[in-house]
């Protein structure tokens, strides 16, 4: 239980810090870079190194590459839904989550995880 409380607080603090920095930055396309900040990764990998060691964290970061590629596809999908199909931000980001999930799991199934 303590581990999950630490995860929750660490994740919340790091995500909020990047979000506040992003709010203050202009232009918006530059601030958007922080939408892909490694906030969840920093908290999770930190705990992984402390709890399971470097080899476990290295294996986790290997498949993180697939997640990041999926995030690029997700961002393109959100842009298209907003500009071409004129959807509002909330439904566009929720619908595009299926793109993230499909690409991430597809890459893992096709290319495999760390040996």
């Amino acid at each position, binding site marked *: 239980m303590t581990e999950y409380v630490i*995860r*929750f*607080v*660490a*994740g*919340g603090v790091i995500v*909020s810090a990047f979000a506040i920095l*992003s*709010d*203050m*930055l*202009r*232009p*918006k*396309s*530059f*601030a*958007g*870079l*922080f*939408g*892909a*900040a*490694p906030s*969840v*990764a*920093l908290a999770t*990998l930190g705990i992984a190194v402390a709890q399971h060691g*470097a080899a476990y*964290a*290295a*294996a*986790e*970061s*290997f*498949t*993180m*590459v697939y*997640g*990041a590629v*999926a*995030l*690029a596809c*997700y*961002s*393109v999908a*959100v*842009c298209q839904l*907003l*500009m071409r199909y*004129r959807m509002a*931000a*909330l439904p*566009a980001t929720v619908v595009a*989550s299926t793109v*993230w999930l499909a690409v991430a*799991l597809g890459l*893992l199934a096709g290319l495999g*995880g*760390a040996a």
Partner: protein
Amino acid sequence: MTALKLSPSALKQTQWYEYVVRFVLGGAATVLAGLIGKAFGVSVGGLFLALPAIFCASATLIERHERQAKEKAGLHGQRRGQTAAALDAAGAGLGSLGLVAFAVVFHLTVAASAVGAFASALTAWAAVSISAWWLRRKLRSVFDRRQRGWRSAGNSGFRP
């Protein structure tokens, strides 16, 4: 070209509950990544380190702030809000290239030193993200200039 600006006054637009929403979503995404790693193994857990966890909250917030700013000026701000959220998504797309660099550098260096791996991976994320953003901006300004040139040549009756 708009210069890079850090404007702390922009934080006044954000309500206190919007900070709480992002904190809770960020914390929940980190817990979810841990739970999935435990249930389905380290490979599936790794995918969720790049989960667009708070993107829906951030995009909705940006859309609402832009729309409200336009509506305050007596204008219809729905399209402006969508465009601002799309710009944020475009930035996240470029940032995801940096996230790939973060993961690759961390993977290659963590065996040598954990602290060094975090420092070098964060540096790689910032360097690749900012370079991608700068390159896109440069290419876009060259493309825009060329288009303007062709348009003005067309107006003056010039045909190559």
